[in-house]
């Protein structure tokens, strides 16, 4: 039996998506910037996809920028905004003269549990003295509190960037509540002619099961990725609310409303539009409930049938497809190896599975416990996951954990 439980890493391209993109690989291969009919048909396809994405997010078409993926969308959101702010608003002569708004380095608030696409970008800005950054710690449930964000806001805070759903432990952050709080702060700031705050969310892991309406969420920028939702790798998008300051980070042609240079990845853009249309046409509650039922069954059984296991991350505020377990006394890579040998794919917070040999920054930030990070495994279910597959996984997991615990010196020493 082959069981893929790593949908959080990537997903297969959906059949309907594949069918939709085939013509654009061969027949409709035109460059959307070309004036002839080949080009114009490609242009139409790109704009149709933009409409699909915009409708899904409750946005307008010009607010959608296609990128090479979630990582580029995050980079563009953060670096583009900071670059633009640094040269315009902060150099506003009125503000320079007014000591109340004395020029300071722009301040970003983000969290310690962000994806590296956000974390590394913020670290880069910090190291190069382009921004000041506060990295908020999550609580032991893997959650960020609205109050925490509010308290961290300073006069020079320009950007708050907080992920919607955590990629490792699946926790759902209170984006709407944070968005509303920021909106309130902005209305106060406006009355004193202060600098507006902008709110970005990395929603890469959220698109399939959460409410993605940008007005509901009260966000100004939002990143999505294609390959997590049944489109190919190498495509994503950034939602950029009209009026949000932005500078480009990739130079060249004037594609994407002059926000992002480079010939459009037509086939993949069509794919992203199609994948999003599929999600939009399904009742998201039904889809969520179905997968959550199976996931809850999985969590319940694992916690019941394997001793000394804990669930990482909030049970309540959790993406319906994610289960992340800490198996005490054993190490994650050896669990993955054991699972892989019986055809089951999962992923681990263990350092030993990565080249860097660093344990997961998300688990480290949440629990401050390296041993826990090494012993944790993430399972992410997908649309096609069946109960039979889950049962097969549980029965193998039981055997693997027992076997590895028999080998580990910690089993007897710690469980005493």
């Amino acid at each position, binding site marked *: 039996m082959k069981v893929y439980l790593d949908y959080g890493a990537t997903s297969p391209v959906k059949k309907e998506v594949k069918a939709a993109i085939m013509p654009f690989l061969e027949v409709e291969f035109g460059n959307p910037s070309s004036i002839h009919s080949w080009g114009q048909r490609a242009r139409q396809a790109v704009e149709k996809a933009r409409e699909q994405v915009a409708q899904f997010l409750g946005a307008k078409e010009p607010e959608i920028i296609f990128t090479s993926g979630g990582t580029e969308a995050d980079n563009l959101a953060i670096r583009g905004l900071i670059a633009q702010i640094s040269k315009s608003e902060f150099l506003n002569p009125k503000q320079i003269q007014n000591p109340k708004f004395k020029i300071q380095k722009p301040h970003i608030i983000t969290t310690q549990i962000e994806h590296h696409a956000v974390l590394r970008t913020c670290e880069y800005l910090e190291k190069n003295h382009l921004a000041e950054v506060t990295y908020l710690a999550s609580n032991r449930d893997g959650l960020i509190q609205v109050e925490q964000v509010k308290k961290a806001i300073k006069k020079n805070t320009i950007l708050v960037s907080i992920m919607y759903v955590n990629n490792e432990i699946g926790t759902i952050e209170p984006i709407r509540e944070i968005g509303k709080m920021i909106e309130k702060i902005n209305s106060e700031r406006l009355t004193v002619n202060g600098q507006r705050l902008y709110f970005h969310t990395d929603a890469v892991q959220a698109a399939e099961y959460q409410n993605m309406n940008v007005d509901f969420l009260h966000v100004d920028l939002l990143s999505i990725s294609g390959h997590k939702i049944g489109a190919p790798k190498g495509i994503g998008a950034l939602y950029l609310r009209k009026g949000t300051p932005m500078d480009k980070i990739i130079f060249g042609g004037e594609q994407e409303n002059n926000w992002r240079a480079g010939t459009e990845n037509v086939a993949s853009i069509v794919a992203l539009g199609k994948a999003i249309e599929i999600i939009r046409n399904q009742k998201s509650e039904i889809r969520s409930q179905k997968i959550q039922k199976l996931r809850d069954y999985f969590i319940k059984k694992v916690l019941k049938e394997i001793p000394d296991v804990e669930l990482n991350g909030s049970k309540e505020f959790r993406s319906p497809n994610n289960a992340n377990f800490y198996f005490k006394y054993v*190490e994650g890579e050896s669990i993955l*190896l054991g699972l892989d*040998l019986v055809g089951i794919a999962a992923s681990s917070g263990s350092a030993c599975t990565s080249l860097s*040999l660093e344990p997961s920054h998300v688990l480290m930030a949440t629990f401050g416990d*390296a041993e826990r990070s*090494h012993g944790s495994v993430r399972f992410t279910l997908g649309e096609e996951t069946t109960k039979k597959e889950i049962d097969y996984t549980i029965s193998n997991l039981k055997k693997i954990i027992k076997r590895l615990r028999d*080998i*580990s010196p910690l089993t007897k020493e710690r469980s005493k």
Partner: protein
Amino acid sequence: MSQNISSLYSKKVMEHFLHPKNMGTIKNPSGRGRVGNPVCGDLMELQIKVGKRKNKEYIQDAKFQTFGCGAAIATSSILTEMIIGKNLDELSKISNQAITKSLGGLPLQKRHCSVLANQALKKAIEDYQKHK
């Protein structure tokens, strides 16, 4: 053959990962060597029983326990196989390279596992010599 994680490892590593040899503890061991740290993701404990034959000390028995990745488990397992029956004065020949070689190689980022196994052996012998 399908490609999977195990294809990162040699056949020999997988053999020892799936069927580790000499796993467990020794009653009243002559020496023990505990190296690594669960915080770093690897912890090995090697226990040895030293006997005498023809006036020479030799490893009569060796057992291991390991918390760690597949490579850590395999290196500790093969180490016990490599040392059982050997005279103590022959053990200096067992380097981390020798351990890696007898496993048919290790991925680069896993080489430290063989270093760890070698350290466990050295520590176990030191422990024996201190207490004899």
